[in-house]
């Protein structure tokens, strides 16, 4: 557990630093690449908590597909590759205050509610959690699963219809 906590701290620091860069950098391409670091860190945290299937899916879907979509979006909107002024609005101080207040409220609520409750060590070290996940999806959550696949189909067709040239 000590090794896991050390890795958690290292990865969490890298994630927070990269997430701050995602929302503050003036270079849109750098923002996408810092987002890769955050998403990879999230996948690593999933694996630390014993959720290896979700971690692998995170890498496949986010780093493999979503980031490529973002890079295509950057390319097709012909953003300047390089520093760009005017990527931040004028009211970003208000945005910062809102985010800080939100963080203070959430921190207070979380520390108040779950002071030092520990994770279930058995679940973290469970070697067959992928089997349990597939059992849960295809038994208890079969209808939501079908609904999600229908949503993906609808989103695919919708994106084609919206982005198509007349």
């Amino acid at each position, binding site marked *: 557990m000590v090794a896991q906590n050390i890795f958690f701290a290292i990865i969490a620091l890298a994630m*927070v630093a990269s997430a701050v860069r995602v929302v503050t950098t003036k270079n849109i391409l750098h923002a996408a690449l810092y987002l890769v670091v955050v998403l990879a860190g999230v996948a690593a945290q999933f694996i630390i908590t014993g959720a290896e299937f979700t971690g692998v899916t995170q890498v496949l879907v986010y780093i493999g597909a979503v980031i490529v979509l973002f890079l295509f979006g950057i390319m097709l909107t*012909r953003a300047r590759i390089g520093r760009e002024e005017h990527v931040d609005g004028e009211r970003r101080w208000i945005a910062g205050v809102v985010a800080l207040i939100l963080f203070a409220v959430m921190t207070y609520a979380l520390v108040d509610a779950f002071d030092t409750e520990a994770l279930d060590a058995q679940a973290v070290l469970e070697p067959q959690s992928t089997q349990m996940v597939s059992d849960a999806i295809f038994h208890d959550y079969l209808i939501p699963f079908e609904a999600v696949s229908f949503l993906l189909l609808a989103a695919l067709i919708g994106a084609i219809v919206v982005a198509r040239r007349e």
Partner: protein
Amino acid sequence: MWLNQFLLLGAVLFCIGVYGVLARRNGVMVLMSIELILNAVNINFIAFGAYHGTPIGQVFALFVIAVAAAEVGVGLAIVLLIYRNRSSIDLESVDLLKG
């Protein structure tokens, strides 16, 4: 490992994402900030799943990943359409509905 270390990491990512959504005016960068928010939610799902010792947290995280993929596809299509119509993705200039 505490539950709270994951929940607080999720809270930090969520608030950074909220700042990005409010402060950015480039449409693609706003979508990136929304991805940060959704990932913060996923961390919470996984942490609570490990806390209760069930795979349900992972199931919901997978659903959120699928919905996020659909969201970014449609969102980028809309941003492309805005770019094609206005030659700019500055969201502060998209104010046709402003009274």
